[in-house]
């Protein structure tokens, strides 16, 4: 999950990532007794600090490796950040996955579900576009966990299916998205991201 990695770029926390053999076998390591003792849910991403502190769930890990600025330094800012982080998980990730995964061959294509997901994505982009008309970033004047969460939730949409025609009405979102991608901390993790030019169709 990119969110903790981007957050750590801001805090300088040094994360050692174990995601491929021999350090980590997905489905094997995370089901081992040693892993389950620390992370009973048996899911990744999972974080273990040098001091032995263990936490799972990508938003919680991103929070832990963040700076106070990223977390929000007043109750209002922290609540607004939490609002957009939850919005990313509940309103963006499900339709984004439904639309994009069949184009990557990850799940089978379902026409009705895809059409519904496209409308959900349009609605979400509309909400973000009106909010970003008056904001440079989602909360306050600087990057926060809200921007990190929503950029990561939108990433595959912008890479795979949001072609210029579809994203045309949402110029504020695309401006904000590209601004975030150009932040060194995002680029260090996401690399060079090319926005979709031709809407990918499902990979039969």
């Amino acid at each position: 999950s990119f969110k903790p990695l981007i957050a750590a770029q801001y805090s300088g926390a040094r994360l050692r990532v174990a995601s491929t053999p021999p350090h980590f076998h997905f489905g094997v390591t995370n089901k081992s007794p040693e892993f389950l003792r620390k992370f009973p849910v048996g899911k990744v991403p999972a974080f273990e600090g040098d001091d032995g502190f263990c936490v799972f769930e990508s938003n919680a890990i991103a929070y832990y490796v963040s700076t106070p600025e990223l977390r929000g330094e007043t109750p209002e800012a922290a609540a607004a950040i939490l609002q957009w982080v939850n919005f990313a998980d509940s309103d963006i990730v499900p339709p984004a996955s439904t639309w994009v995964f069949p184009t990557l061959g990850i799940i089978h294509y379902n026409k009705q579900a895809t059409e519904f997901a496209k409308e959900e994505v349009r609605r979400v982009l509309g909400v973000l576009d009106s909010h970003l008309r008056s904001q440079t970033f989602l909360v306050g004047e600087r990057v926060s966990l809200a921007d990190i969460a929503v950029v990561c939730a939108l990433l595959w949409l912008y890479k795979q299916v949001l072609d210029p025609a579809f994203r045309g009405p949402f110029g504020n979102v695309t401006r904000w998205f590209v601004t975030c991608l150009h932040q060194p901390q995002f680029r260090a993790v996401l690399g060079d991201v090319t926005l979709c030019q031709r809407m990918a169709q499902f990979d039969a």
Partner: protein
Amino acid sequence: MAADAFKHDRIWFEKYKYDDAERRYYERMVNG
């Protein structure tokens, strides 16, 4: 990378169906 997202983060593909059903149920309840 997207496959990783799929493997790692649990995605509730059916969420919209349940949200929609709950909304309709609630509307029926509240608006009689």
